[in-house]
């Protein structure tokens, strides 16, 4: 009997197997990007003489150790925080040099002069839980974003058809072309200057 050579294994299906693996890895790979609330901490050095700020230009938000909210010395619900902050920032009660032409608020004399002067002061206790703190931060940022969206749409909505948040997202996206970024940047900066984010955080104290 002649020795028979071993039959060659058909490698035709190798490609299919490899493709299967490839597709599996393609599908399961999620290039995860984190997202969250960006904040900037104040620098360490103490200011020698802090600027004098009038009481009516400060909007105090206090989160107690029991996660209760005290807005301008009154108990409040988180659900109302956004509208309260918007009303404060958009008040525009100033006259003369301090008047705010674009504000649509009530122009109450006892509330903020203009958005540039309005400061939100956030205080919390060491026992405050992080999730409530984030909820409060979120609502305060939302108040700024609502106002910025409104002004952005009023000024540039007809040409761009997007609001402030979408424009900022587009600007931050590294895939956006530099021409587009050059168009967006001055507009974003203008709206940011109209409603600058002035959110001051005091170091937490043992509140009762």
């Amino acid at each position, binding site marked *: 009997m002649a020795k028979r050579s071993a039959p060659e294994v058909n490698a035709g299906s190798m490609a299919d197997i490899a493709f299967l693996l*490839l597709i599996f890895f393609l599908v399961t*790979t999620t290039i995860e990007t984190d997202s969250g609330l960006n904040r900037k901490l104040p620098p*360490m050095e103490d200011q020698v003489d802090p600027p004098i700020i009038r009481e009516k230009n400060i909007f105090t938000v206090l989160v107690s150790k029991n996660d209760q909210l005290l807005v301008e010395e009154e108990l409040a619900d988180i659900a109302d925080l956004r509208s309260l902050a918007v009303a404060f920032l958009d008040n525009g009660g100033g006259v003369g040099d301090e008047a705010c032409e674009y504000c649509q608020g009530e122009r109450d004399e006892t509330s903020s002069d203009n958005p540039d002067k309005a400061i939100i002061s956030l205080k919390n206790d*060491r*026992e405050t839980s*992080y*999730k409530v703190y*984030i909820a409060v931060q979120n609502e305060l940022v939302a108040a700024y974003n609502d106002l910025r969206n409104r002004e952005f749409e009023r000024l540039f909505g007809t040409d761009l058809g997007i609001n402030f948040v979408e424009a900022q997202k587009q600007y931050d*996206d590294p895939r956006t072309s530099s021409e587009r970024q050059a168009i967006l940047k001055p507009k974003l900066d203008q709206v940011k200057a109209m409603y600058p984010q002035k959110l001051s955080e005091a170091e937490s104290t043992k509140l009762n």
Partner: protein
Amino acid sequence: MSKFKKKKGGDLPAISTASLPDIVFMLLFFFMVATVMRDSTLMVINKLPAADQIQKLDKKDRVMYIYAGKPSSRYQDKYGSSARIQLNDKFASVDEVGAFILAERASKRQELQNVLTTALKVDSDTKMGLIQDIKQELRKVQALKINYTTRVGDYTQNLN
């Protein structure tokens, strides 16, 4: 008599697919190598709070991560159940945060050293005292850009 005779019979020779597996394997290896699973294993419970006014944290090479929360169940015997900070792969105390940030900063490229962001991945049930201490440490080393990493969702999810 032409030298270049037309071949008779229009049978196209089949394209050899023998190199196809090689190409596919090459792609496969690329994806296997390029896929980064997770840099550090989590040793703390890390259920992030929800927020919807968020910005993306692009460019991973510009981000330093600080985790905090209660130690996860298998570490609780050893480290207790009060909230701890995790830096890289180990638990750390508050005063190690500054050194960690400086070391991380030194390991990055020169041009990135001024644009680094610190991402705080903190469990939603942590008390603010710990976060306040971390923030204080960050201020000491001039790491002022921070990001409270959250998941996407309505804020009301945080309130129960």
